[in-house]
Every structure is written in C-alpha cells, then in structure tokens.
C-alpha cells in the first residue's frame, strides 16, 4: 500500500521532523507567553519578521548563527511592543496581537522592497547544512530522521527540554506558571507580575522569530512573501493541543508535521493525482481546527490567560 510505503520511508520522517522544527520553536514561544497569562496573536507576523531578519542578516554578510541571533532580537523587539501595550496598560490582547502581526508583516515587506528593489526571483543564501551525528545517524529509519538534521532542528529539540526544565524545576518557571494562574499570588509574594509577563512575552516572541528564521535559513534558503502562510495560527492551536505542556506540544508539532509531510507525498501518488491539490493544502488547517475541538474541554487552561492584572484594583 502506497501510504504504508511512505510511512516506512526514512525520507518521510526526515521531512516530518524538518517541517516540525519551525513549529516547535514558535509553539514553545507561544506556550511561554500563554503560561504567563498573555495570548500573543502577533505570532504570525513575528515569524515573518524573523524569517526575513535572519535571512537578510546572512545575505548582508553575517554568519548563520549571528543571523539567528538577529532574528531573535527582532522578534524580541516586537514582543516588547506587544507586552508594553497588553501588560502594564492592559489593552485587549486580541487587538494588540493582530496589530502587531500586521505591523511586523508590513514592516518586513517594506524592508524587503527597500533592500531588494529589483529582484524578480528571490536571492539565495547558503543555508544551514545537515549535521550528521556520527553513529546515531546510521540507525535505520530514525537515524536519518532524527540525527541527520540541521543544527537548528537539534536546537529546537534541546529547547523543549530546556523550557520544560525551567518551567517545572526553577523558581523562575514557578513564578511564570503562577503569573498565568493567579497574578495576585505572585504580587503577594513580592514578585513583579508586570516584569514576569513582559519578560515571558519578549522571550517567547524571540523564539517565534527563530521559528520563522528556520524557514529561510534551514528549510529553504531564500525569503519569499506568503512564506509563513498561517503557520503561526497553527501553532496557537498546537499550544492548546499540547495542553500548555512543552513535551506534549512537541508531540503535537511532530504529529502535525507528519500529516503535512504525508499529504505532500500522497499528492504525488496515482491515488493523489485525482484529488485536487487544494484539498491537500487544506488538510493542515482542517486538522488544526479538529485538534482545537478535541482539546477544548480541558481544564488546563491557565486561569488568568487574557485577564489583565490591575494592581490593587478597587
């Protein structure tokens, strides 16, 4: 059976992990924001901005890792704008998030047009190359899938562990989780809710931007418009699907990416040729909606998500 062949091929799983990587970064970023109590709808725009910023830095002569750093800083900048408006001023997180997405996207396109006014096809950079991990990459099936990826992918997986560790084992993570559940509890213990929430949004936005940069610096090697194409919104669904836990979010991202990789390959089979390609392209979005429906009755939502904290409100 064709589908079985696909599922058992190493290239399929390698593609799945590669497709999952930007999702992992961005989902972790959104998870950090939401755990602290802030919904960050700027994710789509920040990914676009990160994709361009990182690529542009490399195109301008910086190394790959400095490029990633530039992307991260750009993301953090937009995160600062978002959190300034939503945390101390308590403005609507929906409106500010959408505004930030628009701002980040339009700034990116403007900058692109200014930097490269006469291009017809997008210029390329030398992107991250796969690092084969010796020995491990020779294991059949999972070798190529997990251990022949680019360094950014390895970073994504490591970050899942790091975020988990910080969230559940450090005082900072504890404070963050409390800020998303009952900010009054945090304030009563002498910590700054504003500082924690703003910090979470800024760091989370940085990660989102790195997720965007993955697209232009690892998965592909050039920047084009409509590149992110709704991945940011899908990550918001993945946070819910992962019940706001890093490990589960990773699982969700990989599962989702596997479906995406599958639909790409099925399109090329005789069975797939009869179905209009638009149906295949729809599947990621439909799946996300289904994931949301399935996971919606959960009690794990951070209780203070989207609730602004007004110190000593009368």
């Amino acid at each position, binding site marked *: 059976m064709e589908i079985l062949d696909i599922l058992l091929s190493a290239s399929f799983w390698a593609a799945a992990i590669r497709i999952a990587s930007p999702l992992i970064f961005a989902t972790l970023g959104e998870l950090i924001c939401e755990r602290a109590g802030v919904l960050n*709808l700027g994710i789509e725009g920040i990914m676009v901005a990160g994709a361009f910023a990182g690529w542009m830095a490399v195109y301008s002569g910086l190394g790959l890792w400095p490029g990633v750093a530039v992307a991260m800083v750009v993301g953090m900048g937009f995160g600062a*704008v978002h959190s300034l*408006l939503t945390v*101390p*001023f*308590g*403005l*609507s997180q*929906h*409106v*500010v998030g*959408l*505004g*930030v997405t*628009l*701002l980040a*996207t*339009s*700034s990116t*396109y*403007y900058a692109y*047009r*200014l930097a490269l*006014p006469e291009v017809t096809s997008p210029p390329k950079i030398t992107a991250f190359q796969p690092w084969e991990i010796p020995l491990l990459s020779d294991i059949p099936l999972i070798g190529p899938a997990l251990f022949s990826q680019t360094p950014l992918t390895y970073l994504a997986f490591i970050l899942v562990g790091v975020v988990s560790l910080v969230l559940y084992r450090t005082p900072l993570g504890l404070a963050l989780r409390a800020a998303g559940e009952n900010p009054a509890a945090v304030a009563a213990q002498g910590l700054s809710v*504003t500082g924690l929430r703003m910090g979470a949004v800024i760091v989370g936005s940085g990660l989102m931007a790195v997720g965007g940069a993955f697209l232009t610096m690892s998965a592909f090697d050039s920047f084009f418009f409509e590149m992110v*194409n*709704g991945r940011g*919104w*899908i990550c*918001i*669904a993945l946070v*819910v699907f992962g019940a706001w836990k890093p490990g589960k979010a990773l699982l969700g991202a990989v599962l989702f990416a596997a479906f995406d990789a599958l639909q790409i390959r099925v399109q090329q089979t005789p069975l797939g040729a009869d179905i*209009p390609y*638009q*149906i295949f*392209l*729809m599947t990621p*979005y*439909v799946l*996300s*909606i289904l994931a*949301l*429906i399935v996971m*919606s*009755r959960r009690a794990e939502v951070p209780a203070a998500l989207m609730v602004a904290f*007004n*110190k*000593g409100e009368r």
Partner: protein
Amino acid sequence: MRLEPIANPSLARSTLPPALAIAATVVVASMLAMLAGANPFAVLGLILKGAAGSQFAMLETLNRATPLIFTGLAVAVAFRARLWNIGAEAQLYAGALMTVVLGTGALQWPAAALLPMLVLVAMLAGAVVLLVPALLKVRFGVDEVVTTLLFNFIFLLFISLLLEGPLKDPMGMGWPKSERLIAEARLPRIVEGLRLHWGFALALIAAALVWVIQRRTTLGYEMRAVGLNREAARFAGIPVNAVLIKTALLSGGLAALAGFSEVAGVKGSLTLDLSPGFGYTGIIVAMLALLNPLGVIAAALFVAGIFVGADSMSRAVGVPTYLADIMLATALLLMVLAILLTRFRVVRE
C-alpha cells in the same frame, strides 16, 4: 503603575490622545519615507493628493471604502458582542461566490429582482460561513479567533479549487477566473458618468441600519450586554447563545456584502485576488471607529484614502505601498492606547 478611572474627562483629555496618536503615525510614516530615500513631505502630500486631490481620486477612495465599510461593520458588530470574527475574508469570498454562482446566468431575472436576490443569497452564504466557528464556540467552547483565521485559509483554497474546476470560465484563456456576471446582475452607477456604483450607497444604508439595530432594538441591547458582561447577561435571563448566533449571522452577512459589492459593482467576475485583505483591514476600520457603525463610515474613508493615496504615491516616487499598511498598524496600536488614556489616568505607585 496603576490605572485610575476618570469620572468626568475634560475636553483636552478626550481629544488630545487620539490627536497625538494620529500625529505619531504621521511621524513614523515620514521616517520610513526618509529611509526609502524620499522627501517625507512630498510623500505625505502625494498620499493626500492621491486620496482626495481630484474627482478621480475621491471616487477611487469612495470605491475602495465600500468593501471596507461592509467588513468594518461586520467586525464592529461581532466585536461588540465579544465575538472575535477574524474570518471576514472568508465570509467576503462566500458572498462573492454566491453572487457568481447565481449571477452568471443561472437566474435570468430582471435587475430589480435579481440584485436583491443576490444580496440575500450572498448574506446567507456569509452568515453560514461564520455560523460554523460560532457554533463551535457555543457548543464546544472552541476559541473563535483561531478557527475563523484558519477558515480564511481553508475557504480561499476552496475558492481556488472551484475557480480551477466547476466555476472556470471556458473563455478565460486558462486563467482561474469565473464567468462574467450578466448585465442584470451588475450594480449600476449611482450617477451616470461617475465611477461610483450603488455598492457605496448600500454600504451607507447598511451602516445606518446597524446603528438603528444597536441603539433601538432589543437585539442590539442584548448584543451589547453580552459583549460587556456575558455572565451578568446570562444571569439576567438574556439567551446568550442565541444572541451570539444571531450576531454571527449578521456579522457574516455584512462581510459577505463586501464580496457581492466588489463582484457586482467593480470586477464583474470572481478571481482569487478579489480581496487584497479587506477582511483583515475591516478589523482596523472597526477598531478605529471604536466599534460605532457610523464611525465605521468615517474610518473606512480614512483607511481607503490612505491605501489609494499610497498606491498613487508609490507609482510617482517609488516608495513601497506597504507604507500604508505600516501606517495603519501603527495607527491602530497607538489609537487603542490613546483611547485608554482618554478614560484612565496613569498613577505612579
């Protein structure tokens, strides 16, 4: 830092912050223009001229404002009830789709009957498209922000599928485009000789109707109550779920009219690039209008002016048109902050 409500804001307090927000937007635009190597005053001047500097420009602005009034109303109605309809884009295309399905020859009726029919069917289509996320919210508690957003992508792919398939114009030289509307399905010009079609008038009427609904009907009262405090509304006996569904139907229908208006008034057929993001821009229009239906008209004219002016300016001096989007995003963010500052003062603790 603490926010303290102001009981009786002074005139200065009510007008200064929004004025400063607009001024700051202009400053940002100027700086970006300079980055592009252009003279900021020239750029701003050209935007103004392109928006309203001639009869042609003004008509163009009014035309561009028409779909924005519809989507702005759609978003304003929904946001009032705290229903986060980010899917106006899909609802717009739903309206356009039904216009084309029935208006390209399926119904050979005179215009006086066909046009109202198309309006009705378009609104129904838009209502149905928003109904699905609304039901998911009401039944399963699924957040409608993400579902309506994802729906935009899904629906656009669906339109693409139809345009390359059953709806494809056999005489379209291979482009994914629908057949043209019959003459009876076209919205006539308001005044002979001026490039302004009846869609604009329809938009104004729609805004007035929405205003009446919100201020004078029980439904409007219910929508406002549900939007401000859902729990208190439920406790008092207001049928919250029914109100949300009715809001969704109204909002989706309004957004769909933007699609109808663009197809029947401007383009004459359906293509994938019918909407350069009118659904999303409607959010900006609604927020700038403070969700007030009459304010939506003014905000739509403002936003349309910026886009039309920026297009014309870009053709003249080459500054990328995305300047308009940056200006609007900045205006939106600064405006929501400014409005807060008209009602609350910042107190250092």
